[in-house]
Every structure is written in C-alpha cells, then in structure tokens.
C-alpha cells in the first residue's frame, strides 16, 4: 500500500498514527483485526524505516541491526545469527563491522531496512525511504524493495510524494490531498480512472491536461485528457498555437496554448511535428476523455 500525496497532505502523519507515534484525534486504527489505538508502539507488531534512517551512529552495523532484538531480550548468539541473515538478504555482510558514518546513503538505507526486517513485523512502515538517495540508486533500491516485498510476506505501508515510486511499487495506491483521502486503487486503476481532478493531475508525467468548464462540452464539467491521448487532428475541436517542442528521444512533448489554457501532447518522434508558432488543432477519442465536476472536482461518469 502506497500513501501518495504532495508535501503537507498528511501522509506522514497518517503513517505515524499507524505507528503510534501520534495519537488520532478521532477514529480507530486497526492492524489486522486488532484495534490498536491504546496499544504502545512497541506492541503493535510494526517496524518503521525513517526518511533519515535513524541509525545509531555509535553502534556498528551489526549492533544496529541487532538492537531491536537485544531490547526484547533475545540471546546473543541468536541475535547475531538473525542480524547476519537480515544483512545477507540485503547484501550487507561486508559492512557488518562498520559504523553508519562509514557507509554510503544506499548502504545506510539498507541497514535501516535490515533493522526492520529482524523484527519480523506484520507491517512495515516506510516514510519516504528513498528520498535521500540519488536518482540511480533510487531506481535500484526501488526494485530491491519490490523484490523484498515479494520474498517476505508482510504488509508494507509506504509513504512517498513521488508518483513514479507509487506506480511502480504499489499493489494499491492511496492518494491524499489536504488531509483527505482522494482515491484508493491499483496504480493502473488510479491512472485510468482518477476519482478527482486532483488525482488526475497528480499522477502521470507530464500531468493530465485539464480543460476549464465549457471549453469542450458542457458548462458544468472540466474535461481531462492525458497527453498521450491528445492527438493532432486537422479537423479537431481544440485550436491552439505551439509554444514549445521538446524532443526526448523516445517521444516528443508538444506544449501549446489554447486561449490561455496550456495543452501538452505526447507524440511519436516519427510523427509529423509542427514548429513553434504553428497553429494546430487537437482532438481526443471520447472514450479517453475524463469528466470532472467543475465545482467539486469529482469524477462525473
């Protein structure tokens, strides 16, 4: 489960409420069938990976991974073995004797994960665990996390503001905005049938074109069209002037201005590409259009 939303939308707070680091002002938190509102964090059978990793800088990697077990009074040899297993799972064995300060960002991140894994929790909570990594490492670690999720049979609740992470990693995605749940569904579902205009624009790069009410069709609905569905069509309904052409190699992004509304169209590089300043006309398959209520922003079937 991915919690996705812009900064300040309440996704981290939601995660911390599940963890028990913050108390809900109203409502109940259930883990499995158990109501955990009044259960201490340590008894919730959860483990959390923090954005900053929160490793103990004075302890070695092995001691960091073992620490949750030590606190629970697990014997020394068993502790060491479980720490080794968790480290092996994440390829951390060569680093066991080092301290966090001597590790790279990606390695620290894996230590934090290993520390969560040794506890064998029923729920893993992750608060933007990849945001401190560089782009390449983020991609690799993303794949590792998906792999890990497949191998250990636990629930992951993963907070991110990065829709690519959400789309690639999530079994289900929950989109939040201003503390309100916008939509829950599989990534494809959320992409194909966004429940609100916000979700429509938040997921997908470049974002969905949202035409003001009245521009296409009825006065009371906004029409949304994904860039890949906005086609150049000589007899199209939408008239615009090309403002920018971006050649990305595998695709071309065409930005055009239609009476003050910005339209982005994703084109095949092999297609005919107009030039900046050219007047163009767009059209979109009616089946590919999304309709949202002009005032509430909610999806109109």
């Amino acid at each position, binding site marked *: 489960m991915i919690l996705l939303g812009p900064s300040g939308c309440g996704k981290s707070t939601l995660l911390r409420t599940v*963890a*028990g*680091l913050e108390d809900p002002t109203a409502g109940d938190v259930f883990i499995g069938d158990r109501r955990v509102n009044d259960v*201490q*964090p*340590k*008894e919730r059978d*959860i*483990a*959390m990976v*923090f*954005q*900053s990793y*929160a490793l*103990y*800088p*004075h302890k070695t990697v092995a001691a960091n991974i073992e*620490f*949750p077990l030590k*606190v*629970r009074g697990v014997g020394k040899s068993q502790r060491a073995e479980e720490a080794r297993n968790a480290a092996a799972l994440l390829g951390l064995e060569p680093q066991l004797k080092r301290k966090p*300060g001597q590790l790279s960002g990606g390695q620290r991140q894996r230590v934090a994960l290993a520390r969560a894994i040794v*506890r064998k929790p029923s729920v893993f909570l992750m608060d933007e665990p990849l945001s401190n990594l560089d782009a390449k490492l983020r991609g690799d670690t993303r794949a590792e996390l998906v792999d890990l999720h497949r191998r250990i049979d636990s629930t992951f609740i993963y907070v991110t503001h990065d829709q690519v992470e959400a789309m690639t990693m999530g079994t289900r995605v929950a989109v939040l905005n201003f503390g309100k749940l916008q939509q829950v569904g599989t990534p494809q579902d959320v992409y194909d049938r966004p429940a609100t205009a916000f979700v429509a624009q938040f997921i997908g790069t470049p974002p969905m074109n949202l035409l003001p009410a009245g521009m296409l069709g009825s006065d009371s609905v906004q029409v949304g069209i994904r860039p890949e569905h906005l086609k150049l069509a000589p007899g199209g309904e939408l008239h615009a002037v090309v403002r920018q052409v971006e050649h990305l190699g595998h695709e071309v992004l065409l930005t055009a201005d239609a009476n003050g509304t910005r339209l982005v169209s994703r084109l095949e590089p092999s297609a005919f590409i107009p030039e900046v300043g050219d007047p163009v006309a767009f059209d979109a398959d009616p089946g590919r259009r999304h309709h949202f209520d002009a005032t509430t922003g909610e999806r109109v079937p």
Partner: protein
Amino acid sequence: MAADTVRGARKAGRYTLLVVLAFIVVFPIYAVVMQAFKTGPGSLDHPRSLLPVDLTLSTVKAAWTQGNLGRLLLNSMFVSLMVTVGVVITSLLAAYAFAFLQFPFKGPMFIAFLATMLVPAEVTVVINERTADSLGWINSFQGLIVPSLASTFGVFLVRQVFLQLPGELREAAALDGVGHLRFLWEVAAPLSRPTLGALGLFTFLGTWNAYLWPSQVIRGDRAHETIQIGLEHLKNNDISKINLVTGGLVVAALPIFIMLVLFQRQLVRGLTAGAVKG
C-alpha cells in the same frame, strides 16, 4: 610588495602581543615553581635568582611531610571524583527530562532553573553552611560532596547536546520498545561523550580548586581537609620558611596539570562539539 610588508608587520605585532601575554600568564607560575625547587627550607638568599640552577627537592619534601600532603591529596582526589561522577549523572538525568520528556510547566521550570546560575555562590554559602550544620555534615565528606552534586551549567550543556540529536532516533527507539533509561544509557549518553568528558573535566578542576565552600564546611578537621584548605598549615611565621608554601602549591597543582595534559584533546573536542558536526 607594500601589502606584503604591511601584512608581515601586522603578523609580527600580533605575535609580539601574544608573547607578552603568555609571559604575563606564565611568569608567576614559573616564579612559584622556581621558588619551590631552588632553595631548601629555611634558606633565603637575596636577591633571589630565578634561573633554573642548583635545583633541589628538599623544600617539596619538607612541605610533603610537614603539611601531610599525601592525605590531603587523597581527600581532594576522593571528593573531586565523587562530585564529578555525581554531576555527570545528575546532568544526564535532568537534561534528559528537559530535552525528551513532556510535562507541565517544562519551559518556565527550565528558565527558573537557568536563572539560578545568576546567583553567585557567595550568596548561598551562609545558608548552605547552616543546612550542613543542621544535618551534622560539618567536618565530613558528605558535607564537601553533596551540595555540589547538581550543576545547572552541566544540565544546560547536556540538554543542548540532547536537543541536537535527531528526534527520529528517539522515535525509532520507541518503536523498538526502548524505555527512557535504556535510551539514555545506550544512545543519548554515548552520543554525548565528548561533551560529557568536557563537563567531567571542568567539574573535576572546579572541585579540586574549590576553596570557599570547603573552608566553611571543614573546620580544622584535618582528616577531611582538601588540599586547597590544607595548604594553610604550611604558612609559617618564620619568614625564612615561606617557600614551604610554594612547595605545597606545586604538589597541589601537579595532578591538575597532569589531567589537563592527558585530557586536553577531550576538552577541546567537548567545547567545539556540535560546531563541527561530521
């Protein structure tokens, strides 16, 4: 060329000033040390030369036996160690409460607590002495030790370090089921070690050199005297034996000197802790 000359002159001026200042600081110490090692007890030569020639240990030896300095050193060592350990422990505990716990009136309490630093020790010495008296602690080690076991400065210092620890560390520990004492002992204290070292050293030095309070609470009981007040007994009406006192001073300062040399790096690290976070 001209700029170089100006810079060179400025540098020379700066060093000259530093040399003069260093001389002002070092000279009295040098004079005392020379006085202690140059002349035997009872010998006075005028004018005294301060050149390190004809050195002898006889004055220091005489001071050691006449002043019973061995006993005084042990007393001072015991009292200073106890106070140091005590201050580090109480500072850790109080700083932890002020940094990590939530309780009513925490802010005002901390400010009130800090405000006590404004009260000079001389103001409280009389009332403290009466309290010690009513507890029967005059002429005792507890009278020397207990009133110094808590240090506002120590609490403040350690709290500042604790506040710099990332809050996520505490949260991660809470999720792992780590209680307050365990977090303090296993995480917060080890991470504050440079500061704790500096606090310990400062406290030791301060206690070792304390004069006012020991002179009030120890009244002629030579078994409990610290070295700073015990040196009094080396004073002598015989002007020719004045250098006995200098011998005692050298003995009293030696342990501190050794400690400073040994822990100098710790001290500097503690003072600059946080300034250069790795």
